[in-house]
């Protein structure tokens, strides 16, 4: 998956410019940067979630499965079935745990054994042992960390090509965070993952490649852009740009 974007607008507001973010298969690509730098915007552009926002306009290309996600005639609904997403706030549907995970399968009219796939997805999300005896219980009755893993299970049940994780741990406590991080590392065997995180330590712990975004306020508005991108160790140990170094050493945030 390769994202080359020139400009992202919300109405007349230029939100992000000039960023080339290649996302490698079976790796975790971390997006870091200060608040308002557009890292979430870029992530949500990859599966055209931003199409739901009024005034959103994308200039550039996102190459995926040999096609341009923003190409002519591409249906965003179909794109989202191949690029799953996990959000900042755990957002299970108000259905049973089973129905939550089965939702995407039923949506795609999956013909095989749904129960089997649900079990597999819950195991993949390291939640099976905790919920196997209460699959009929509401997804909303779980703890925050469990809910987030349920959302991950829901996203991987349909076996998408790519998983987009938008600050998946920001609403979780440290123990739940650790579990979700372990899960991400586990999941990259089968999936390609893009992860937005506020937490630099998290990027160091899980990301193979890290993209650092920052905000340009020189034009009077806040426009995000990619400062540099590279292997996580290089970004944190030996950044090429002064700004990256300032950010990771905590000189600004």
């Amino acid at each position, binding site marked *: 998956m390769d994202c080359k974007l020139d400009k992202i607008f919300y109405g007349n507001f230029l939100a992000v410019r000039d960023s080339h973010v290649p996302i490698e298969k079976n790796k975790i690509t971390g997006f870091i940067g200060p608040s308002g730098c557009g890292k979430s915007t870029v992530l949500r552009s990859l599966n055209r*979630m931003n199409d739901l926002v009024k005034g959103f306009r994308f200039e550039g290309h996102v190459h995926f499965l040999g096609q341009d996600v923003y190409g002519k005639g591409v249906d965003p*609904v179909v794109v*989202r079935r191949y690029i799953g997403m996990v959000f900042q706030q755990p*957002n299970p549907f*108000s259905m049973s745990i089973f129905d939550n995970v089965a939702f995407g399968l039923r949506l*795609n009219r999956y013909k095989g054994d749904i129960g089997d796939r649900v079990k597999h997805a819950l195991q993949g999300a390291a939640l099976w042992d905790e919920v196997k005896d209460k699959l009929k219980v509401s997804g909303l009755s779980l703890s925050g960390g469990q809910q987030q893993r349920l*959302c991950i299970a829901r996203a991987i049940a*349909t076996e998408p090509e790519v998983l987009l994780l938008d600050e998946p741990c920001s609403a979780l406590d440290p123990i739940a965070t650790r579990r979700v991080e372990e899960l991400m590392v586990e999941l990259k065997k089968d999936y390609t993952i893009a992860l937005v995180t506020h937490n630099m330590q998290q990027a160091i712990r899980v990301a193979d490649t890290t993209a650092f975004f920052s905000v340009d306020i020189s034009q009077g508005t806040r426009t995000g852009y990619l400062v540099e991108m590279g292997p996580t160790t290089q970004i944190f140990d030996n950044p090429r740009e002064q700004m990256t170094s300032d950010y990771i050493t905590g000189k600004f945030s």
Partner: protein
Amino acid sequence: MTNLTSPIAALPSLQRKFEGRALRSLVLTTLVWAGALIASVPLISVLYMLITRGGARLSLEVFTELPPTGFETGGGFGNALAGTFVMVGIAAAIAVPVGIMAAVFLAELGPDSKLANASRFAAKMLTGLPSILAGVFAYALVVMTTGTYSAPAGGVALAVLMLPIVVLTAEESMKMVPKIMKDAAYGMGCTRSQVIWKIVLPTGMPAILTGVMLAVARAAGETAPLLFTALFSNYWIFHDGSLAVMNPTASLAVLIYNFSGMPFDNQLELAWAASLVLVMIVLVVNIVSRIFGKPKY
């Protein structure tokens, strides 16, 4: 100096004193209690009268027999009960689907469109509509065109009253569905209509049903809209082997209205009993809405 040498004398008292703040608080508390008691006096006395006077006449016959005329003894209001069910049923069959679809438009499709603002305004105005005007509307629309008082005419009048309640409560219920839940559905690759059918409507359904039940309860008790749409009848809506739909139709509310003004004890007693039955219907509908109104998950 005394402060330092004898600290006990200098410490402020922590005892409750009935002056100033404490006194004001006591007075206000008393007033609030009194207000609550006074507010419940009419309700409790109405219920007391209904149960003692209506309950006295309540028996199986009142549900199965036709209303008595003049000096007849006995009788009941079986046809009025059936008529109320039929007309509320017609009203619900019109108002619930239309109302929920309108609410989907207001909450999901075009919440800020001109049409939405206009319909929302219209619905809010309609909730305050004097119910007799709903009757006038149905009279012009149905009675004039069909040339007869009928159950459908009554049903349309009641539907006009139910519609705004259904629309506004259903819209609120759908707006309560968290945006992040809808985002999740879009993120799974749902189309907009799938988000509405699979997420918004099921998640909002308990609250929508509560609104529907409230509307049903309101419609069941209305008299004015039925006075010159369904009128009244001394016969069953189902008689001679067919459904007499396009005939004047009895209802509990109009029966109470008619009988309560009569100089015969028998009819007065029946009016009391019918009132009790009507209140019980409203009560049952409310209880059912509480049961359905509990979210399943």
